[in-house]
């Protein structure tokens, strides 16, 4: 058996084997293809052994019910992690006043470090990494609490700098254990750090980065470029998380500047800037759809299509909302949606 490159490919192969077995049963039932006893005696053990090997090596799901259970476990793990994060926060909140400052600092620093040790211990005793993922969320929350509360204890003036180590820890844990939720958390932290730092260099408060969407735009492009530049042979599902966060970080500023050109760094009139970003928003969404189709990335294509539709709807509102009765407006929007569906169908046929 050719060795798969990673877990995702192993899962895809297991799915193919499972579908092949089901399809073969159907063909036999319809008397289209009937294997001899000798062929079946060779095939069945091969299929069983292949699935067992894949399950043992990559901890993949070999049945549909296993797949559903895995999804449920991931959801429970994320919710449990969030609940434990809240427990850690409220514990500090409740007993904080009775602990001397040195004790407070020791607890704050020790909590994420003990969490790391617990992660290592648990990860060596489970294959699914559900509990490891749960503890990883607690470690991340503890570290966020660590720096935040340390800042409160010593009355430190707030800055975006804390987002750099928060993101670094989340990304380090994500790559160590293959945790997409923490990768997303880390990228979001850096998505705050980079624009807030750039904005603070201009002399305004760092919290104003939301009012300077172009800084976020640059960060979104950096994240999209990073997913293309960093090879992810072992973490095949990570580029999808990069694309999701990067594209959202790209669309939001485009939408913000669409309506508020005065927030741009570009020294042009607000109307000219707004129109330019409106065009750029459509171009970005269309390019995302094209890229998703070309690279066979359904998630990316859907995100691009959703953004394109949203932009189109906003444009229609800008153009027609005040000009016509509402029923005609929605009738036109519905008619255009049908037109788009036909266009997408033709595109699908063309790419088949």
């Amino acid at each position, binding site marked *: 058996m050719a060795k798969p490159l990673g877990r995702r490919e192993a899962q895809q192969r297991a799915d193919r084997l499972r579908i092949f077995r089901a399809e073969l049963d159907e063909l036999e039932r319809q008397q289209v293809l009937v294997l001899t006893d000798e062929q079946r005696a060779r095939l069945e053990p091969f299929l069983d052994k292949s699935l067992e090997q894949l399950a043992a090596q990559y901890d993949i799901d070999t049945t549909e019910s296993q797949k559903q259970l895995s999804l449920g476990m991931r959801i429970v793990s994320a919710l449990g992690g969030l609940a434990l994060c809240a427990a850690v926060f409220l514990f500090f909140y409740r007993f904080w006043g009775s602990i001397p400052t040195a004790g407070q600092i020791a607890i704050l620093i020790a909590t994420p470090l003990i969490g790391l040790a617990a992660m290592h211990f648990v990860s060596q005793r489970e294959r699914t990494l559900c509990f490891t993922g749960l503890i990883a969320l607690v470690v991340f929350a503890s570290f966020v609490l660590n720096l935040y509360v340390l800042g409160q204890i010593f009355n430190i003036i707030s800055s975006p700098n804390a987002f750099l180590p928060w993101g670094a820890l989340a990304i380090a844990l994500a790559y160590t254990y293959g945790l997409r939720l923490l990768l997303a958390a880390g990228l979001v932290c850096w998505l705050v750090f980079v624009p807030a730092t750039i904005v603070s260099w201009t002399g305004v408060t760092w919290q104003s980065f939301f009012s300077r969407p172009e800084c976020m735009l640059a960060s979104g492009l950096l994240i999209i470029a990073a997913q293309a530049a960093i090879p992810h042979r072992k973490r095949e599902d990570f580029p999808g998380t990069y694309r999701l966060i990067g594209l959202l970080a790209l669309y939001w500023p485009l939408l913000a500047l669409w309506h508020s050109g*005065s927030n741009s760094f570009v020294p042009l009139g607000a109307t000219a800037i707004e129109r330019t970003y409106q065009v750029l928003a459509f171009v970005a969404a269309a390019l995302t759809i094209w890229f998703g189709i070309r690279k066979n990335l359904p998630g990316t294509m859907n995100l691009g299509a959703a953004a394109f539709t949203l932009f189109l709807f906003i444009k229609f509102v800008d153009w027609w909302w005040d000009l016509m009765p509402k029923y005609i407006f929605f009738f036109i929007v519905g008619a255009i949606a049908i037109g788009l569906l036909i266009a997408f169908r033709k595109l699908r046929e063309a790419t088949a």
Partner: protein
Amino acid sequence: MRRLGLLLAAAVIIVSNVVVLVGVARNRSGGPVETIQLTQRELPTGFHEKEDTGVSLRLNWSHYGIVYPEETSWLDQAKLESIGFDTSAALRDTKHPPLPRPAFVVFEYNGAAWEHWVQKAQQEKSLGGPGPDTQTRLVAIDAAKTPEALLQKYTDHSKSLIVRGVIHAFASQTDPVTKRPGPWRLEGSISEVLPQSIHVPPPIANSFTKTPYTVTLAFGHRFEPWVIGP
């Protein structure tokens, strides 16, 4: 591979904490830059929920500028420009106020500015709500982009307090004195002082549970405060 990742994560945690604690030590090294004694009027305890056992104080400064805009007339166009605001651009586009800027703000404590306000309020009988005996005596009198000039200008640190703050600027057509429309001008206001709350360490937290109380506050080289004692 996993061990390397864990070591990297541990290093991030340890290095970040070291950087923070070194910053705290640098702020407090060589003694405070300024020390001032205030009361519960200027430093009331911050809001805290039932389960919150920590104690914090918040710096309460006068907002008399809302009632008497002429009291903040020192924060004029020239001052805003010196803080870094592009005043001409702000006046060209009056619909979009410039983004807030961090600055160093001087508060006079129980000084001429406070006395002036009390006299004026008593004359006009506009002193609504609690009387002057309970209100804060911290009145903003100056601001600058950097603290050096302010430290040289305001040397009596028992009467003046230099803190970090955030300044907003906005265009207005209303004359602050006549209250009538006039040409567009830029006005400023202090929207917050930093940090917004001041933590009280546990051994002395009990001193601030009952009013009246006094607080001795120190500020370090980075203008980050700490409570020395009652």
